[in-house]
């Protein structure tokens, strides 16, 4: 038996937490993208506003979901930062002339070796994004009548934001960086919990690539589409 607190302190336990929180975030991000696809329905925002209103209808339960999601994000960030700091501390004197990959089976790339930087960018994005749409949904969004019912016009807020090239570029960059993070992250999460066999590794790697590309295209495509419309 290993006490839980000790297991979570271990190098393997820390990566276990990273993996589970990371996969939870991947699932969230997939659902988030599917929901956002309603922005593409050419009905002046009715589908999207209805989708958003469905969350409002959850009442206090929405806060429970939001707090849970926030907790997962904070856990992932906290463990991500501490794991990275510990890993850096394992080689305080770096190679003077650097280190070069030997290729072959190695996954060492600019993406896999810089998860902390793609992660930090995503963290900054999350803060800005929450202010931009979650906070401003309450403080700035207008009301609209859909089928005789009053609703928050979140669609208006989103479409308005994506008339500005700066916001479009920022969201597109975030979509791209999410893809970068998951290019290594998805596969890595399976390996981190030991849910991996040599026979599966190729397939899981390919699925990770597929999900990374799909999410990147989805998240950078929507702001671009709304801008060009």
């Amino acid at each position: 038996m290993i006490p839980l607190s000790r297991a979570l302190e271990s190098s393997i336990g820390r990566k276990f937490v990273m993996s589970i929180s990371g996969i939870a975030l991947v699932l969230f991000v997939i659902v988030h993208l599917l929901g956002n696809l309603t922005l593409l329905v050419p009905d002046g925002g009715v589908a999207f506003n209805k989708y958003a209103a469905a969350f409002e209808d959850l009442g206090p339960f929405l806060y429970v979901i939001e707090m849970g999601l926030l907790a997962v994000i904070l856990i992932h960030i906290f463990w991500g930062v501490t794991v990275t700091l510990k890993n850096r501390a394992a080689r305080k004197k770096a190679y003077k002339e650097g280190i070069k990959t030997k290729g072959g089976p190695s996954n060492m790339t600019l993406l896999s070796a810089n998860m902390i930087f793609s992660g930090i960018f995503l963290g900054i994005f999350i803060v800005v994004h929450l202010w931009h749409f979650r906070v401003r949904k309450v403080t700035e969004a207008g009301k609209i009548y859909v089928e005789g019912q009053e609703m928050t016009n979140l669609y208006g807020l989103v479409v308005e934001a994506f008339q500005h090239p700066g916001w479009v570029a920022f969201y597109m960059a975030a979509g791209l960086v999410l893809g970068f993070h998951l290019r290594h992250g998805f596969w890595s999460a399976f390996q981190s919990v030991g849910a991996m066999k040599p026979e599966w590794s190729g397939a899981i790697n390919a699925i990770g690539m597929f999900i990374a590309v799909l999410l990147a295209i989805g998240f950078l495509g929507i702001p671009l589409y709304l801008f060009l419309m």
Partner: protein
Amino acid sequence: MAQESMTVHLKVWRQSGPEDEGEFRTYTQEDVNPDMSFLELLDVINEDLIKSGEDPIEFDSDCREGICGTCGCVVNGQAHGPERGTTVCQLHMRVFRHGETIVVEPWRADGFPVIKDLVVDRTALDRIIAAGGYVSVKTGPKPDANSLKIPKPRADAAFDAAACIGCGACVAACPNASASLFTGAKISHLAMLPQGKAESTRRAKRMVEQMDEEGFGACSNIGECEAACPKEISIDVIARMRREYLKSMFTSH
């Protein structure tokens, strides 16, 4: 087909002791036989250094045939040099270009303090093994042949993991200086065989704890260790180590 002899410049890490700052020094060697090994080049340079009254470049080696795991240094940014599945004692000068500057550094990791020049202290790996990398049950006299049945694929996988020579290239090549490939190889080797299986979770717990205590990093699944490993051990052993460790959270010994 004898190749022409070559000239190389060796930019090598010199550090007189653990406390010394250390620095690169460059030595030029002419008339290098392309068929000699990289360590033989160091021998040749050292002969001249000794003759001129300088301290020779200190490095570890023993078998010089790639089986003992004693040698090891980072050559041009790669553990054991540019060739895959090769120890630096089996690296030959023909892989380098005439006139090339070859950069040589010791393994760098806080768990592997430099003793002198290219020699590092790898006893941390011994302590990881001592923490549990063995079978403690008394197995009695030699059993009859084939009385213990082990499926061929399993025996092969255990053997692949057992091929680790403990050179430390995995730690040297890992961006996190993690010893996961080394530790995972021993845990997997023993967990896959009936003699070792009984104690596999306790072994995983103890060895992982020791690995962390030695100051090695966590595994980020980058897999550079597998590319650097002279025995080409797969990071599958790391996945298996994690399974054994997680199992040990739920079992009672």
